């Protein structure tokens, strides 16, 4: 890591997104992190959207400390998202991951150099398209009778164990049904989309939702397509699933670059 003089504030460049045809004027109404103005760094026909950040806060040590602070994380994530949404409104945009920081504009250009070809492919893929999220939850299987042992009588313990075993098998069957339903739902909705991806199901401790998430999917859809309506109509085929459709999102899940 290069030495930097300690005099004055150490600043870096926070990268929000790289796109095409994004002029600074289109972003004028959107503040960057800590209310700093957004700037664009143009290179090789692509445009990186950046703002200055204090390296005490966004340098390696600062990030390590701050990423553990949920309020900090939420604040940065929401600002990042609002900048990405503003950029998406102006031109095709590949969002960067949270907390991608360079020392200066030269390093920003070096990143654009390094990622150029996959970036162009990603931008071609998402141009004129938006992302929708579809999450499906299996209903909690209701218990078939109370599995408490009768207090007395010969064979009560064995009967209890038998009921427990049947209950476990029944729950497994319900889980398998839900997984199959989710698979079918994912495939049917993919027919109305340009592309689909399955993300890791979210932990119920994070979402606060009842029931097991059996599908956490993202779809890439042509802008203006009535995907939410189409999905709502398709959902009647799976009354056992509780489904949430959200969007449009910027195409976060479809602008991924593999690590170089």
């Amino acid at each position, binding site marked *: 890591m290069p030495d930097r003089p300690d005099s004055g504030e150490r600043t870096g460049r926070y990268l929000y997104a790289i796109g095409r045809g994004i002029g600074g004027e289109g972003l004028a109404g959107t503040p960057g992190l800590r209310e700093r103005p957004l700037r664009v760094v143009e290179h090789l026909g692509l445009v990186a959207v950046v703002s200055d950040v204090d390296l005490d806060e966004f340098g390696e040590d600062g990030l390590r400390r701050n990423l553990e602070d949920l309020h900090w994380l939420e604040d940065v994530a929401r600002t990042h998202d609002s900048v990405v949404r503003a950029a998406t409104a102006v031109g095709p945009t590949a969002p960067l*991951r949270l907390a991608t920081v360079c020392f200066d504009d030269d390093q920003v250009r070096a990143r654009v150099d390094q990622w150029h070809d996959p970036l162009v492919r990603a931008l071609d893929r998402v141009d004129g398209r938006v992302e929708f999220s579809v999450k499906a939850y299996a209903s909690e299987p209701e218990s078939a009778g109370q599995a408490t042992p009768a207090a007395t009588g010969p064979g009560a313990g064995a009967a209890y164990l038998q009921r427990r075993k049947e209950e476990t098998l029944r729950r497994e069957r319900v889980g398998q049904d839900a997984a199959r339903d989710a698979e079918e739902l994912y495939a049917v909705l993919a027919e109305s989309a340009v592309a689909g991806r399955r993300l890791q199901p979210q932990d119920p401790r994070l979402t606060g939702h009842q029931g097991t998430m059996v599908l956490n999917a993202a779809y890439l859809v042509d802008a203006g397509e009535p995907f939410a309506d189409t999905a709502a109509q398709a959902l009647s085929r799976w009354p056992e699933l509780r489904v949430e459709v959200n969007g449009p999102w910027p195409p976060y899940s479809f602008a991924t670059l593999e690590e170089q």
Partner: protein
Amino acid sequence: MPQDVALVDLLDRLLGTGVVLAGDVVVSLAGVDLVRIRLQALLMTVRGPEEEL
């Protein structure tokens, strides 16, 4: 819409996908670490810091 978006959905996208960060200041924050940090940070608020993952 942005304020209505659930934080967990946003982090799914901002941490799990998108352009990988490949260097400079945050070189040591690989994807796995970020996911772990995310879960710990979120669980801390949901359940309190005494429970570990």
